[in-house]
């Protein structure tokens, strides 16, 4: 068959004469990965540093507000959210490394990558939604504590509770959609391309074409 002959000649003429230098290979293996997984990992790392910065800031605020126990508790809860966030993000980032085995076929590898990316994105979004509610509530309480009100007074204040409830109800979908939008913007095209290729390898697209 002529095609094989042409392919052989293609190999001989176009690719056998190109020569890689040792230094080029060494430079490549010490370079930084530009893969989507690495991009997510870098993003997670940056977020964990931000968490640490906020923990530091809130701890200072707690020290400064030590005379007002209500304020200390309100800031403390937010601080705790950031501490949990820091550990969870680190855990997620480490898990990504341990799951990236390469001695599997292309289809498995693509499925694994899609799973890792989706899990990481969902984790971030859910944590963002939950964390945002806690932060909204604590900020409201903190503000009122600063005005001299006590916890007992606030939980008996129907106006305040209604306002807090409305703020939470309004912010849940808002935060959810903002998170979803940002994630889709960053990784949406990559994930959909990955899924299309998975379907093609699994024969799903192929079977559709057969029908």
């Amino acid at each position: 068959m002529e095609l094989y002959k042409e392919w052989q000649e293609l190999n001989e003429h176009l690719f056998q004469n190109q020569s890689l230098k040792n230094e080029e290979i060494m430079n490549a293996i010490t370079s930084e990965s530009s893969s989507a997984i690495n991009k997510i990992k870098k993003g997670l790392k940056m977020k964990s540093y931000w968490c640490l910065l906020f923990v530091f800031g809130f701890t200072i605020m707690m020290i400064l507000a030590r005379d007002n126990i209500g304020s200390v508790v309100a800031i403390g809860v937010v601080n705790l959210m950031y501490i949990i966030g820091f550990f969870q993000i680190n855990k997620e980032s480490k898990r990504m490394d341990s799951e990236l085995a390469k001695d599997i076929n292309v289809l498995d590898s693509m499925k694994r990558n899609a799973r890792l990316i989706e899990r990481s994105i969902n984790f971030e979004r859910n944590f963002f939604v939950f964390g945002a509610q806690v932060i909204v509530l604590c900020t409201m309480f903190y503000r009122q504590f600063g005005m001299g009100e006590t916890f007992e007074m606030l939980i008996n204040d129907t106006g305040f509770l209604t306002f807090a409830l409305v703020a939470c109800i309004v912010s849940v979908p808002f935060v959810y959609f903002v998170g979803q939008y940002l994630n889709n913007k960053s990784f949406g095209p990559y994930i959909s391309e990955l899924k299309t290729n998975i379907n093609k390898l699994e024969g799903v697209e192929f079977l559709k074409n057969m029908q």
Partner: protein
Amino acid sequence: MKQDSELKEEFVKQIKENEGIIHKVIGLYVDNPEDNKDLYQEVLLQAWKSYKNFKGKSKFSTWLYRVYLNTVLAFKRKLKPSEELKIENLNHETTKETKKERYEILYYLIKQLDEVDRMIMSLHLDGYANPEIGKITGMTNNHVTVKIHRLKTKIVEQFKKATDGTI
């Protein structure tokens, strides 16, 4: 247990022996020099990262192919779209004359296929048997067989068009 420097030396040697595969696979997926360089670095980096797991159960070239394809398909970042190639746009007068252009036409035709089909066709033309292609890609043997048959028919037809039936 091999030392890191020994491993590196061995890796470099193996890569140099099989570098044709790298250029060919990368060339099938990207066109512009910037993306080519990025993908080339990524592919070598991923190959090095997984080299420690290479147990020698398969040929190095087969293993390397799998790592390259994993990288190109599963790790691909957003690359600049390549210029659309159409068989009608190939210059018949110049393409049919020389042998060099005949294999270039074949290369362009394979580049026209979608990502997955490109991978299957290049594996097939490199002499991998269908069950082996199935193992590398994760596809079933039947699926590979039917796919290759369809792709070959399509490519032969287009090749004939581009070379005025001289195949």
